[in-house]
């Protein structure tokens, strides 16, 4: 196992180089550059900038350099741990990303906990009470949860909250707390606002997870070791938790690593619609405005997380499942 992990870690830098090139290629593929996008933004908000100024800026930002030169400059900086400067924000990308990181993670973690806290018990209940009324109800909820595009859900919930309860649920903070320093009141405010986006983000995941949990557990419940355990005289719920749930859980736990990158891309649309301070909208903006070093930085982190996530999943699965741990 250790050898396997070491091997994977060793090829990580190589993979990152390949990824960085592909990413740079992709973000550079759309026609135009940051300044074309910038001019377009200015023009569509009713203001303008002269051709001379554009040329000057283009030169200043090095956007008139050939593709490979730009790439190597980027790589050179990256190797020094420098994510470069955002063209739009005129601030170091590392700062911009790290500022959003905290709340992104908070939201992701919250929806993750919510997802698991709802999905796993629901899945266990459904599997241990198959074809019961509650099982059917949960199944229907799950299917609808999977089928509803979450951006639509977000939009409708936001409107309903406003139209019928007169509360504006966009954002993660009340206006007075957005830039306030951290305090108990601010945490409380965050907890008040986080549940709706957390729910919207988590709903499809919850539905999917509880269906997988149900299916896995149903499989496990039919295994002979369950009969053995029952024949030992164990309490039913204890038995279910200790044996089949534990086994049904393994494949789920192994997806936790995959969840890591999904935290960023999954919330992209919802975070934009709900105006959440999040990496997702930052990435979307950077892509649309062709703020390429910012977009590149976020994508690179994303790829890194995917690789690490995959590795983490494998390690987790091995830790949980002695069959894998001992044999490899």
């Amino acid at each position: 196992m250790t050898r396997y992990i070491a091997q994977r870690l060793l090829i990580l830098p190589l993979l990152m180089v390949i990824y960085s090139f592909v990413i740079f290629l992709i973000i550079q593929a759309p026609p135009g550059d940051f300044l074309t996008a910038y001019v377009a933004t200015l023009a569509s908000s009713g203001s303008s900038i002269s051709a001379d100024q554009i040329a000057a800026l283009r030169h200043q930002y090095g956007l008139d350099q050939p593709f490979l030169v730009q790439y190597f400059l980027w790589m050179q900086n990256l190797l020094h741990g420098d994510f470069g400067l955002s063209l739009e924000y005129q601030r170091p990308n590392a700062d911009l990303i790290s500022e959003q990181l905290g709340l992104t993670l908070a939201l992701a973690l919250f929806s993750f906990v919510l997802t698991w806290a709802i999905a796993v018990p629901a899945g266990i209940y459904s599997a241990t009470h198959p074809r019961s009324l509650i099982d059917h109800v949960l199944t229907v909820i799950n299917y609808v949860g999977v089928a509803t595009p979450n951006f639509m859900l977000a939009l409708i919930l936001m409107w309903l909250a406003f139209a019928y309860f007169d509360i504006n649920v966009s954002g993660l903070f009340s206006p007075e707390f957005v830039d306030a320093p951290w305090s108990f009141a601010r945490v409380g405010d965050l907890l008040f606002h986080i549940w709706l986006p957390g729910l919207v983000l988590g709903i499809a995941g919850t539905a999917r997870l509880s269906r997988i949990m149900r299916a896995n557990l149903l499989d496990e419940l039919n295994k002979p070791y369950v009969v053995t355990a029952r024949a030992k005289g164990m309490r039913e719920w204890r038995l279910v938790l200790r044996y089949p749930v534990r086994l049904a859980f393994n494949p789920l736990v192994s997806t936790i690593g995959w969840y890591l990158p999904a935290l960023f891309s999954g919330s992209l649309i919802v975070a934009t619609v709900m105006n959440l301070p999040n990496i997702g909208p930052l990435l979307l903006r950077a892509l649309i405005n062709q703020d390429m070093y910012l977009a590149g930085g976020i994508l690179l982190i994303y790829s890194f997380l995917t690789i690490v996530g995959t590795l983490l999943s494998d390690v987790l699965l091995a830790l949980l499942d002695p069959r894998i741990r001992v044999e490899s």
Partner: protein
Amino acid sequence: MPLTRIAIEGAVNQQTPLLQVRDLRVSFQLDEGVVRAVDGTSFDVMPGQVLGIVGESGCGKSVTMKAILQLVDRPGRIDTGEIKFLRSDGETVDLVKLPPRGAMIRQIRGGEIALIPQEPMASFSPVHTVGDQIIEAILLHSHRWEQGGRKISKREARKITIGLFRDVGISMPEQRVDAYSWQLSGGLRQRAMIAMALSCKPRLLIADEPTTAIDVTTQAQVLALLRDLQVKYNTAIIFITHDLGVIAQMASYVVVMYLGRVMEQGPVDAIFHAPKHPYTRALLRSIPSMYGQTRVALPVISGTLPHPFNRPPGCPFHPRCADVMPACSVGVPRLMPVGDDQLASCFLHHNEAEPV
């Protein structure tokens, strides 16, 4: 060999049976219809006796066993019948009437009636060590190991487990306790299973085809071990198998089942030397040489086992029976004495039919 008698109507018990199964009926409610897996089965198990239940796959042997432990899963259901069990404190309880998840049945399971399952590989959880699972069983029924009302600790349970491993002939028991089931060979796995079954000093052991999944040499060893242990602890055993050879070696009394009904039962000698029921005879005929080899699988009897939904009317065996008579397709023959200690349900020997 102690004298045993099956209690039937009018017969007098010489000794209180450990387990009395009376007219047990278990059915499965499926979308396609109802499957009557056990359809009026009756037999007794005496303390210290080895009872063999034999029959083709799907004849209801395993379901009967599960019914005894109240482990019949949905959509299965015990419809009628009694399963009277003589508890160690001398009281007799009807297991059918116990709530399947209640405290009493859980005390009995593992504590008084233990199970040796069919597939030792799948019967251990693959992510817990073998020792863990046995220690758990010991702790569940720790009162059976208690000395002076003191609860036993995990460490003591582990010691007991190692002792049990030694008893069932597992070499290097200290290391094996921490192994996972899939790290053990088939034979060792089954030995570990037996150790678990014995861990709480049960009074009745149900061995559900314990040797089907292991190779021939190991099979013989496991059987020998079971025999030794039975003698040592004087545990009663219900031995379920489709292998008549195994029955001949192990059991003192035999119950032959077909499609959820008892066809014939009696002492092992009577069954083997003077079978009364045509089904038993067919079974015996299918063994090439009884003592020639130990590995005797049950070859095909003419015709195939009917589909569970298409139960024939009358005697369930009549479509395949060589001695079929017109009456056979009309009434269901009752299980009646047909000799010393031997009972059969066949119109060849009596005219008693089950009441409709």
